[in-house]
């Protein structure tokens, strides 16, 4: 008897028993692998939006959204495809929030989501190449493509009169894509790149890389890397050897831990970070803090917005149907309609229920272009007195 019970629960766990008015949404992120420290907060942020919609009682006659987590591993396309297949054909999810890293996102979108007609909203895949996949209108992302940040950084540097920099990037699709777009944009506005060199993460010593960068003769060094990884090592080695003391940082390098690690030598450093200091971003930070999510963690606001968009799209469609969600996600994200901020999902659901229209703004000022990508806004930051201060929003 006990065995039978065990077997039947196992079966239930594997199939995921369906209950009336339960809407399943997949949350496909790399819970194991290179970004496993970021994903729990990203998933929790998306689930925060799902809970908000479920608890409002407004969603499709009091339906609840159940999140089903699956592991994309961030790097293993084969495992991610199998996880996506499980979400779609076994759990029967109506949409997927994810995936995270650009490589697996492309594989899951092309091999599973698009063929099955399931919407994917990625909160963190930033590779410019994903703009060109044949997605039949099923792939969206709430994180802007890296191509955009390069342009913003180039503008910032020009406005500050910095016309020659050395560039180093972490050798992956993020670092390389960003460095390419920055180099094009910066030379386009008349700047000069003295040298572009990659660095690999996870090394103990970066003095050789810094030596090569400094030999090119620029006074400023742009670092497109990760603050807990090679990026920090590059800055440390530059300061130790006196090669550079003016740094330009991209989003992967912005965080309190870099200031803690380096100290006051960072004063005067400038950088860019997606997301404005908008009212929505501030509200979301407060909400996330209350829910126990690391405040200001990368891609948490984008994850929340991805979750909220899916909930609103279901309501606008009037049914939690895969194709209907796809047909409505664009209209709830863009004008015209009532502006919806984070924490106001219930209000948005109510407006949609009574036949009105909404324009979801959310934590990151969501606005999709015609291929379902956000342009995004960027803050220009400067380190003053040992902390990052927002100078301007681009």
């Amino acid at each position, binding site marked *: 008897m006990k065995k039978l019970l*065990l077997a039947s*629960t*196992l*079966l239930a*766990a*594997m*199939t995921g028993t369906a209950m009336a008015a339960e809407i399943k949404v997949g949350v496909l992120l790399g*819970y*194991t692998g290179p970004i496993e420290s970021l994903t*729990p907060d990203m998933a929790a942020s998306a689930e925060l939006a799902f809970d908000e919609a479920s608890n409002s009682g407004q969603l499709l006659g009091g339906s609840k959204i159940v999140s089903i*987590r*699956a*592991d994309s591993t961030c*790097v*293993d*396309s*084969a*495992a991610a*495809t*199998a*996880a996506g*297949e*499980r979400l*779609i*054909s*076994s759990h029967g999810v109506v949409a997927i929030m994810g995936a995270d890293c*650009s*490589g697996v996102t*492309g*594989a899951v979108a*092309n*091999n599973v989501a*698009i*063929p*099955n*007609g399931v919407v994917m909203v990625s909160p963190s895949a930033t*590779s*410019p*190449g*994903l703009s*060109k*996949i*044949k997605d*039949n209108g099923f792939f969206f992302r709430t994180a802007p493509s890296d*191509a955009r940040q390069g342009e913003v950084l180039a503008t910032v540097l020009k406005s500050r009169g910095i016309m020659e920099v050395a560039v180093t990037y972490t*050798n*992956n*699709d993020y*670092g*390389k*894509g960003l460095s*390419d*777009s920055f180099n*094009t944009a910066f030379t386009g506005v008349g700047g000069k790149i003295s040298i572009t060199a*990659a660095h690999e993460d996870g090394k103990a010593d970066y003095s050789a890389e810094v030596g090569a960068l400094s030999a090119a003769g620029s006074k400023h060094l742009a670092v497109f890397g990760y603050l807990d990884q090679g990026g920090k090592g590059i800055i440390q080695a530059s300061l130790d050897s006196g090669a550079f003391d003016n740094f330009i940082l991209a989003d992967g390098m912005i965080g309190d831990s870099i200031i803690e690690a380096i100290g006051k030598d960072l004063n005067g450093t400038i950088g860019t970070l997606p997301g404005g200091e908008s009212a929505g971003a501030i509200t979301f930070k407060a909400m996330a803090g209350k829910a126990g999510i690391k405040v200001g963690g990368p891609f948490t606001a984008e994850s929340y917005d991805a979750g909220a968009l899916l909930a609103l799209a279901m309501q606008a469609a009037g049914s939690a149907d895969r194709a209907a969600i796809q047909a409505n996600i664009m209209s709830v994200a863009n004008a015209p309609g009532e502006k919806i901020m984070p924490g106001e999902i219930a209000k948005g659901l109510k407006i949609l229920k009574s036949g009105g229209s909404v324009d979801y703004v959310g934590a990151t000022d969501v606005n999709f272009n015609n291929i379902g990508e956000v342009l995004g806004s960027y803050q220009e930051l400067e380190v003053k007195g040992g902390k990052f201060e927002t100078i301007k929003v681009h």
Partner: protein
Amino acid sequence: MNNTRRSILSFSVMAGLLLIVGQSQSWPLMLTILNLCLISSVMALGVNIQWGYAGLFNVGTMGFAALGGVAAMLVSKAPIPEAWAAGGSNLFIGVVLFLFTLGAAVAAYRKIPKGSLRVIALSVIILIGIFATRYFSDTAIADIEAVNPALTGYLGGLGLPILFSWAAGGLLAAGGAWIVGKIALGLRSDYLAIATLGISEIIIAVLKNEDWLTRGVKNVAGLPRPVPYEIDLQKSDSFISWIEWLNSGALKGLSDSGRADQLSAFVIEQSGIFVKLCYAGLFTTVLLLILSMSVMALNSPWGRMMRAIRDNEVSAAAMGKNITGRHLQVFVIGSAVVGIAGAMLTTLDGQLTPAAYNPLRFTFLIWVMVIVGGSGNNLGSVLGGFLIWFIWIEAEPVGVWLMDFGTSWMDEGNPVRLHLMDSAQHMRLFMMGMVLLLVMRFNPGGILPEVTKPGLNK
């Protein structure tokens, strides 16, 4: 239990596991897992040829799988005419100069007698060669990578059907293995392991950094498929009417609109199944071909010689066998099989992502397949490939269920329960270790151990 019965039983259990997934989770998921099991089996066969037959401790599987993946991209992707126009001629001059330098260096080495004159001549030839080659190739590479870097920035491929690439992947990996073998095969067991591990990392580093060839870490997406696209099938009238005929029983007695909805749901679901079945057919053909050749090779005099070399190199050498030559041969063959599997994997993924190659997934997981399945036994490697890949994927849902079930007596908001549920995905590596330990404890030769003929020692 004799070996045949043991094999039949093990494979029946494996088939049963897959059927349970099909029945309780879904058939498309089962086919997805099956396809990757087939590829993993081919890869494990390649490692088994090296380790099981000849005792070569090659932990550079990742590098050869990656070479196969590159071949898939280079064969199938359409060429980029703009990139060829921008840098093609300079690149060609660079390649010719490189080959010329190589030829001149070899000729100098052979013609000039040993001594300081040879050292000086070689140094001068190589130095001039490097600078001349780099003068042209650096310009070529910069020009090629400047062509629309966000989307292309590389030369593209040959634009041939991707099925050719499976053979090309094998050839490329074999060529790579020949070079690696020439350098490293003089080394003994553990030194060979370190050398191959290092060389495989070098191969990955080249793929990640030579953007003009592979787009590096920016990935090449959208490789053409050898099978139809689901989206095209869903629009094809003949496929729809075929599905209608296939499901006529289920569609009977529905109202017109209900019937149309149901039919389109069937078409979407079964187009996916159809595509996966096509892949499964192709992969099974390759697996059976390679498996049958492996079995024949192992039972032939050649196979006996290999085992003799593995078990006692000194006495095999005393019998007049060329140990280094045979090692090189088996190293090249095994790596070619791994390369074929690597090309099949890239074909199935539909994209080349050089940053995705890491030793845990592409070397050590394959080794676990061979060890758990039974090294020296071809069927064992196939079984290992199936079983380990199955666990690799199914560990996640089972892990989630185990955590849920194990903490079901706790309160919903209990921090211990929440923490365990949040880390359920990490059960994958834990289970892999458990399986390896259990098999090693109770079946040190693997699930299907090596078959030794009566009368032979052991």
